[in-house]
């Protein structure tokens, strides 16, 4: 008898989900956020449809404030894998000069990320979008379905979710309605790292410790990734050995001091650490039920 390991089971489940969407939906797309979860999701997609390429494009909603390393990595991956990459920027937000330093994280995220995402989905008429969210990330995610049904206005209604039994997913919808699908629902942060290690999946170098210019602001280490970051009086970038546990807009992403420059070292550090990965995300601190509220409004 062959015993499947937990990673083999998780992988099989994710591949099943990816294939189900492609079989049942007309225009799927994969939200590619360039982070480690996206890296795993993309890797699973390459497996699910092999020897064919994944029959859908990648979509990156670019807030224009991502780390430069992320953008370079994004373009390199799409090219190497031979996949179509769509990049969408909320032009209206850009014209209004929306940014994290000038408008704060809440407005910036809403306009450049949430609104930008809705614009992109409407523009291309996608009826299903894969996202790399995991249920272990946050409380309201724990209750979200794998196939998350959204109204024509992209709203998530926790009371109208469809029951999901066995591996039976209901992908049916009326015109204008859409699905957000989360193939990594049952993965944890540890699973993700173990899988990246085992499968040798490329990830953005920012996850590995290196000397980088940072300033400490409100107790968080922010990397000075370009000259758009206004320095407050007395602030001076200093070089420290840091890395990132999650990646997003650089002004909103806290670095941690670390010497971990290899995958085993990262995993070791994570296993010994005492704070959760979302702590580095400024977005969660806005209000207690902030994620739940954002989701209802159409955030991934």
């Amino acid at each position: 008898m062959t015993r499947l390991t937990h990673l083999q089971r998780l992988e099989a489940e994710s591949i099943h989900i990816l294939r189900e969407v492609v079989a049942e939906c007309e225009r799927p797309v994969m939200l590619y956020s360039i982070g480690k979860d996206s890296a795993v999701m993309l890797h699973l997609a390459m497996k699910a449809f092999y020897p064919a390429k994944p029959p859908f494009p990648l979509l990156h909603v670019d807030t224009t404030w991502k780390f430069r390393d992320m953008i370079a990595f994004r373009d390199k991956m799409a090219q190497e894998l031979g996949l179509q990459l769509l990049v969408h920027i909320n032009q209206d937000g850009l014209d209004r000069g929306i940014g994290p330093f000038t408008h704060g994280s809440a407005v910036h995220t809403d306009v450049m990320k949430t609104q930008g995402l809705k614009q992109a989905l409407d523009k291309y008429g996608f009826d299903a979008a894969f996202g790399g969210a995991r249920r272990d990330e946050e409380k309201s995610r724990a209750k979200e379905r794998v196939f998350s049904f959204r109204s024509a206005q992209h709203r998530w209604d926790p009371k109208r979710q469809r029951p999901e039994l066995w591996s039976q997913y209901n992908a049916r919808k009326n015109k204008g309605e859409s699905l957000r699908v989360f193939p990594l629902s049952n993965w944890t942060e540890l699973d993700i790292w173990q899988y990246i290690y085992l499968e040798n999946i490329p990830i953005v170098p920012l996850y590995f410790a290196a000397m980088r210019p940072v300033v400490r602001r409100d107790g968080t280490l922010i990397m000075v990734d370009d000259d758009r970051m206004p320095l407050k009086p007395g602030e001076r970038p200093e070089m420290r050995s840091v890395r990132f546990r999650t990646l997003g807009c650089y002004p909103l992403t806290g670095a941690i001091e670390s010497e971990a420059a290899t995958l085993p070292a990262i995993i070791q550090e994570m296993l010994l650490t005492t704070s959760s990965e979302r702590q580095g995300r400024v977005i969660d601190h806005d209000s207690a039920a902030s994620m739940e509220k954002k989701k209802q409004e159409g955030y991934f």
Partner: protein
Amino acid sequence: MAHKSDLIATDIQAYLKSHEHKSLLRFITCGSVDDGKSTLIGRLLYESKMIFEDQLSTLEADSKKVGTQGGELDFALLVDGLAAEREQGITIDVAYRFFSTDRRKFIVADTPGHEQYTRNMVTGASTADVAVILIDARKGVLTQTRRHSYIVSLIGIKHVVLAINKMDLVGYSQQIFDTIVTEYREFASQIGLENIVPVPLSALRGDNMLERSSATPWYQGPTLMEYLESVEIEDDLQHRPFRLPVQWVNRPNQDFRGFAGTIASGVIRKGDTIRALPSGRTSKVARIVTHNGDLEQAVAGQSITLTLTDEVDISRGDVIAAAASPPAVADQFQATIIWMHEEAMLPGRPYLIKLGSRTVTGSITAPKYKVNVNTLEHLAAKQLELNEIGVCNLSLDRAVAFDPYTDNRETGGFILIDKISNDTVGAGLLSFALRRAENIHWQALDVNKHARAGLKGQRACVLWFTGLSGAGKSTIANLVEKRLHSLGRHTYTLDGDNVRHGLNKDLGFTDADRVENIRRVAEVSKLMVDAGLIVLVSFISPFRSERRLARELMQPGEFLEVFVDTPLEEAEKRDPKGLYKKARRGELQNFTGIDSPYEAPEKPEIHLRTALSSPEAAAEDIMNKLRDAGMLYPADELSGL
């Protein structure tokens, strides 16, 4: 996230190596908040060190603010999810939790225990290998314990932990523990639950959670965690015959045709002989293709792509099976149905049924009985309401390959989807095929529909008049029939009121009866069309689903939906039978347009707006449509038929 192993700090490589062989266990916890369920899960997360310090400090703050433990850590707060729930202090849906130890990764389905949430428990149980049933030691085996256990057994979970919690509140009494265990075992044997492991616990104090408690020296069994880490989930799915529901056909180019899916049971090796169902064609496995290279064999649970040695026509929804022991193929079944939607299950209404990767249309008969989940009594029922479980016959519009649910959850479990809203409205477990489909052969008669219609110089069809009471359906239908008759056509009118005096006099006006009313009329119309007649049906027929059912019974082009569109105010003003007045006075219940909905057709073949034209003009309109559709061509043109 301090996992306990010393290897993490000393030899991370060795640690990672050992973790590559961890297995996965899914379990469900059943019980109510009062039983300490959230506390139990919260503690498992806490003790397995899956709680980070920032989460812990939030927990400490919350415990002081809204906790129920007098300022001490309230583990329940860790798992109460949505904001609304936190305020109400209840769990309202299925939540999935994750933790892992050095031996296993665990996925916990956390479902509420209240009666109205049978739906959620069935959902959570459907993927679980083990059920943890919580009992409050002070209260013993309750009605809800029986209910949870019944669902666990129905959904086919083979391993049960009887977690007798709050032992600290009964002085860790062995006698109380033994009494509860004896009572539970007696009940469990009645419903076929066999592998039961009782554990005396205090989730709050941590007794027998991870480590053996000194307070229960009389207990020799495993702690909860010891059990969860070691229970053998006998992977008997691998020993069952091979089944691969085909999810997707992979055709990147002319030279490659792969069949992708997740293996539902069994083992497949290169060179094995397979049979594709429902076609029955056989072939051999040429390759088992994966991104990491071809496999020699694959087992239940793996997602793979197969290629075959022959060109066999297989598409999504088919099942590739071991040639020597293929699944049965049938279109009529007995099944247990769990209803999951606020809108009741209506016998006869067509639903989409998704079984494996196949989606077909099917309908359900009235339940043979429903089960009282508290007493397990069988009760008579005409329909199934939200959270009700019943045994019904299921009839599909095409034959599918299947296994009984007790043999295989993936090829014997299905979901029911509403055709209009697309909601998942129920779940079903196939018991066995009814042999009716194979035994009753439709007699292929030489004198067929075309021959009968040809003799009358016409083409058979149904004109289905739908609209509010008083819209003018019968008036217009009558005019149309007169005109057809004068042209020498053979017709018959089925009128709502008249049919209710005879064939349907046993039916009332509830939603369920309305569906049955239409189903019978649709079937009668079908026979009349087969007899070569032009049938005029004049029925309010308020529901889209039933009109669609009637349409789907006929051949394409035979069904013409006539929407007699009269605004409610106008129909009520006419009120030819005085029914609206009665309904407004509350003397008539379930009256369409007043306290029962009318779902207007979306794409009727003929749309008559009676406010804009006379009944005569409307009838003429219909005659023109019939002429245009070639339904009224002269008799001599038909001589060749």
